Each structure stands twice: as structure tokens, then as C-alpha cells.
């Protein structure tokens, strides 16, 4: 059965919506037989967006593949907090090699499976934005260009959080990190989804931990394709973003509602769907709750920086048609 996209417009619990659906259309996490791929007991910080995102993605992948998937993980928070020897939180086959080579290692896994004729087993690579947009980009681009049968997931929290919040290529303009104490004055963060689309790979999608149903849908949909696929998930980091550990979902939702983080899908390099913003907000609403942008609202307000971020959000809104009404079919 093809993946059916289900939208819930009520906020809060998904329970009601789930009950009205056929059991196999209910959310993966609502299923008591879910894999628990990344199980409890790991050492992520409270409110970690990456831990939440990884669990939802991998459980969805495991359901989509009938528990026939192996995982390759780049160095980073996800690897460190989940595998302090002799403990492991992974209930899926899992391999860590290095910071910059997860896509190439995943390629090797896929090649070995192909040589062994194991078409039933699928490969998932994952890493943070440091391992993906910076140090591992050459390997990732190679994997895209060869169209290797790998789903690669980037959990983007906009910085090197594992080493103590330093700037990465995905750090947004204006954000304070320990290596950009006055605020990141470089670009607006590298958009790897657009780079991935330029490779014309079968499937590229973005998602956030604010819409977990959508995240599950995209991970599931990705497994319907063969070849290189890329899923970019916005995962707030309470430590690096200087937000409360209870604000992770809220701040991720604000990133979407302000247009800062466009949520879309692309097939073969063409955008096929974008999540519309129902109540557009100014970027200030997204920036204000975060300590990493506090300097923009201090004694000397940095309206110039805010308007630059607003301009970037406006461009996203235009490019992806984020405020256009949903097509009714």
C-alpha cells in the first residue's frame, strides 16, 4: 500500500486522529509493536530534539522495511549518547566508523548487501549537521552522485553541539556559538536539502520534530524509493539554542511558522510538496525565545540582523510557496 499522508489540524494529542484510522495507518509510535530502535536509557540531554527525531525516524524505517534495516552513524551527539561501552541503546544493527565517512560506509554496506543478493535489507545513514554539511559532505555528495541505495538522515541542530556548541556550516546567521561569540556573521547556513536536490536524487525531504506524524510519513515514504535519498530534520538543541528543555517542540514549530525552516518534499530534484504555514509569524517570534539570539534584542538591538533573517525567511516563503492555500483534490 502506498504511504498515505495524513494531516491533523488539531494541536496536542494525536490519539483522537489515530483512533479514527485503520490500525496500519496509525502512527508508528502509537503501535505497541514498534521497534524502539533507539531505546530508553541513553544519555541525551533533557529535551534533546535529535534523540526524539532519531527514534521516530528509525522506528518508521523499521516498520516500512519489516525490521530489515541496518544503520550507519557518524560521530556526534547521537553516537556518543547512545553507545557508551558496554551499553548501547540501539535495537537495530548499528555501526559507527568516523565523523566524516558515514555516507561512504553506508555505501559499502549497500554494496555488500547487493553483492550478497540481499535486496530485503535496507541501509540508513545518519549524522548531525557537522558530520553531514561540513566534514562528510564530499562522501555524501559521492553517495548521491552514484545514487547508492541509502537513506541518509541529517539531524540539524545548527552547530557542533557534541563538542560544546561551536559554529558549523549549518549555523544560522546571527546565532551565538562558542566560536562565534558575537553572533555568526557568515551566510545563513548551508542548505543541504537544496544541494541534495541539485544531485537529482530520487527523494529529498525536510521535516522537524514539531510535526512527528510528518516525520514518520517522510521516513516511511523515503523507503518506497530505491537509490540515494536524503531527509533533513530540524532538531532543536536546548543546550546550544539556550532554550528550556520543555521548549524543543515549540521552538521547532516556530521555525516552520516563521518560514525560517521550509518543510517540503522533492522527487528527482523537483519540489513536489511543501507544508503550508497557516498562521505566518515574524521571525522575531522564533528568535526571541532562544538565548543564542538574545544579543539581537539587547541594549543595542540588531534590527539589521533580524531583517536579514526575515528576508531569508521571506525568500523561503516565496520559493516554496509556503503561504499559498493547500490544493484541494
Amino acid at each position: 500500500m502506498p504511504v498515505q499522508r495524513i494531516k491533523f489540524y488539531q494541536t496536542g494529542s494525536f490519539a483522537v486522529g489515530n483512533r479514527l484510522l485503520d490500525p496500519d495507518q496509525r502512527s508508528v509510535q502509537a503501535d505497541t509493536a514498534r521497534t524502539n530502535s533507539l531505546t530508553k536509557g541513553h544519555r541525551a540531554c533533557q529535551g534533546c530534539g535529535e534523540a526524539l527525531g532519531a527514534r521516530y525516524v528509525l522506528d518508521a524505517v523499521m516498520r516500512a522495511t519489516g525490521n530489515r534495516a541496518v544503520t550507519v552513524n557518524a560521530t556526534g551527539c547521537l553516537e556518543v549518547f547512545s553507545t557508551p561501552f558496554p551499553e548501547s541503546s540501539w535495537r537495530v544493527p548499528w555501526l559507527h566508523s568516523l565523523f566524516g565517512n558515514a555516507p561512504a560506509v553506508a555505501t559499502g554496506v549497500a554494496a555488500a548487501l547487493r553483492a550478497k543478493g540481499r535486496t530485503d535489507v535496507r541501509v540508513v545513514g545518519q549524522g548531525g549537521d557537522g558530520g553531514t554539511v561540513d566534514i562528510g559532505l564530499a562522501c555524501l555528495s559521492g553517495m548521491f552522485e552514484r545514487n547508492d541505495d541509502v537513506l541518509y538522515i541529517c539531524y540539524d541542530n545548527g552547530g557542533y553541539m557534541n563538542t560544546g556548541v561551536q559554529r558549523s556550516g549549518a549555523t544560522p546567521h546571527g546565532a551565538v556559538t562558542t566560536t562565534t561569540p558575537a553572533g555568526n556573521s557568515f551566510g545563513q547556513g548551508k542548505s543541504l536539502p537544496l544541494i541534495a536536490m541539485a544531485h537529482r536524487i530520487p527523494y529529498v525531504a525536510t521535516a522537524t520534530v514539531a510535526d512527528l506524524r510528518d516525520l514518520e510519513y517522510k521516513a516511511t515514504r523515503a523507503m518506497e524509493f530505491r537509490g540515494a535519498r536524503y531527509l533533513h530534520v530540524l532538531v532543536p538543541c536546548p543546550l546550544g539554542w539556550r532554550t528550556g528543555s520543555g521548549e524543543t517542540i515549540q521552538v521547532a514549530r516556530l521555525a516552520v511558522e516563521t518560514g525560517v525552516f521550509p518543510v517540503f518534499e522533492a522527487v528527482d530534484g523537483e519540489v513536489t510538496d511543501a507544508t503550508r504555514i497557516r498562521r505566518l509569524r515574524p521571525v522575531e517570534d522564533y528568535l526571541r525565545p532562544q538565548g543564542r539570539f538574545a544579543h539581537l534584542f539587547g541594549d543595542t538591538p540588531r534590527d539589521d540582523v533580524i531583517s536579514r533573517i526575515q528576508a531569508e525567511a521571506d525568500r523561503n516563503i516565496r520559493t516554496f510557496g509556503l503561504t499559498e492555500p493547500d490544493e484541494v483534490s
Partner: protein
Amino acid sequence: MRSQIEGSRAVAQTVARCRPEVVCAYPISPQTHIVEALSVLVASGELAPCEFVNVESEFGAMSVAIGASATGARAYTATASQGLLYMAEALYNASGLGLPIVMTVANRAIGAPINIWNDHSDAMSQRDSGWIQLYAESNQEAADLHVQAFRIAEELSLPVMVCMDGFVLTHAVEGIDVPSQEQVEAFLPPFEPRQVLDPDAPITIGAMVGPEAFTEVRYLAHEKHRRALEVIPRVADDFARTFWRSSGGLVHSYGCLGAETIVVALGSVLGTVKDTVDELRAEGVSIGVLGVTSFRPFPSDAVRARLRGARRVVVLERALAVGMGGIVSGDVRESVPGTPISTVVAGLGGRPVTKKSLRALFTDAVADRLEPLTFLDLKRDVVERELGRTS
């Protein structure tokens, strides 16, 4: 069957007969002919089931090999020089994870200055990476060592580097007995991995290890290399019984017994060294040669046994430990404390090592006129002019 064949092609055919399931590589001279030949064999379906992966870098090549090996596939790659350095981080990873990858290193100098010709700087810079390093003396041995390398790697769950001199061996055409498919199959059993990524039995490979266990992991790596010292000669014996020729092992001694002077060397230079020594012996000079095939693990006991009784040892090195001198000399000195050892740095960046130079060198050595560190055929006037300018 014996045929006139280029070294690279002989290695490619031999590797093919070891039935690798994943072959990957990034082109770099002087290694390219090997993977070119393998890509043709894979494309023709002759190697099926085998995947040839064209990667974006040597770092990618070793990473693909790591992923493939961790999935239980027999994985092979080849590189040289800067390429080996570019994959250095992944080299430590492959050995740390205990993945039996086999790799050919077509030995070449490291820049700057850029130089594509042969010496051993590349492989020796990865001395402590945890890889087994075997050095081929000839193209016949290069081919044979690959068959043995897969056996050794898979028996120990350790990666093995087969080092063959760039151009001097890789591009030389000579008569070689390329191991046949039947012989290889009789010698090399199918790969039975120790642990694999398998959805039916999920395991975590590559967990983070803290101070409470890291020393133990490293100790075990060392222990594995100590065991390799027993496995390598046993595999070489097996090889000799199956193929009716002797290749590999830890060391090869050539007239060492009772010799007053013994020259220690690795790789293809051994041919010229032996020719020179033959001449000197015919003139009554008491001199022998010890070829080291296994540089890592370093076979200290075997070296000690062969060097016992020598009055002096000359170590011919094709790499330089800048600021110190010899790389192999240190290991030899550790093996035979008290024996005078001279280090000779020779053939860097493809400088020819001639019989004439060696003859003069050994004559000096026998007469105890050799400095502790000598650069063979160094152009004194050039360096002195430069030193004068900079002082």
C-alpha cells in the same frame, strides 16, 4: 601458468581469484593499473557477484571497504602515497574495528615536493595504524602475498596491507606464475566474518569506549599482532605446500649464517642487494642479507635469530624518520641490542639504488668506515651550497 605480465595486472588477476565481493578505489599513481584491471573484470561479470564502487576519494574508498567488511563481504582496495595518508583516519578505524580488509599499497614517496616515484614513506607513515604490513620482494611475491593476505586477515580479523614498490614492481613486465582459481580455492576458504551487521541479530559495532576499557582494547590489538607472528609463517608454509613455491613469511635470510656483516632491507631493492652481495661473497667477503617481509608485526625473534653472531648490521631504508634517521633501524636495534647498526637511507623518491653504489657502501661497512647514518648517493655539493645560503 607462467606468463609475461605486468605486476599490477598479476596482482589484479590474483585478487580477482580471491573472489572479493566489494572492490573500491580512487585512482592514484602508481596503483591505478590494478583497479583498472579489476574494474574490467567486474564489468565483464567474470567476478560476479562483486560490486565495483567508484568513490570520490581515498578516504571514501577505505570507508566503503569498512562498511562492506562490516556487512560480511570480502573487501579490497588499493592506494599509494598521498592517497594512503588521506585514508589514514579510516585505516586506524578499520584495524580498531577488526575488519579483515586487504589493500595493496603501491609504495610511493609523499610530497612536498610532489614526487610520484617509489620509496616506502607512505606505508611506513602508517606503521602504528594496527594494519599488518607485508612487503613484496618481486612481482611473483606480490601476487602470492595477496592470496596469503586474505587468509591472514580473515583468520585474525585484522586488515592487511600488501606493499609493492611503485613502478619498479607495479609497472614491470616479467614472467609470473599467477595463482590459478583452483589453487586459490584450495588455499583460501570462503570468508566467515566474526561479527556482521545483520537485521536478524542486531549488534552495535563501534561503540564509544572510555578510559575504563580503552587500554584493554589496545592491548588486545597488540596481542593480535603477536599472534600474527605465528599465523604469517604458518600461512606461508601452507602456501608453499599448495603452490609449490616459497613466498611470504616473516623474513627471508640469504647467506646470513656465519656472516660477519648482514644487510637488512625490504621490498624490491633486495634483488640488487643480493646481486651485489653475491659478487662480494665471491671475493671472499663475509656478508649476508636479511629480507624483512613482515614489517608489522615486526618479527623481532626471527630477526634476532638471523642476526645472531653478526659483527655489524647495515639497515637499508627507503624512508626517512625526519629528525631521527631510520625507521626500520629502530626495530632492528631493539631486536639485537649491542650489535653496531648503521642506517642507510636509500632510493628516496625513486632515486636509483645501483649495484655500484651498494658495492661501495658495503665495502665501507665491512671496513667499519660507515657513519651511523648515511644518505646513499647524496649530492653533497647541492646540500652544502644550500646550507651555506641559509646559515
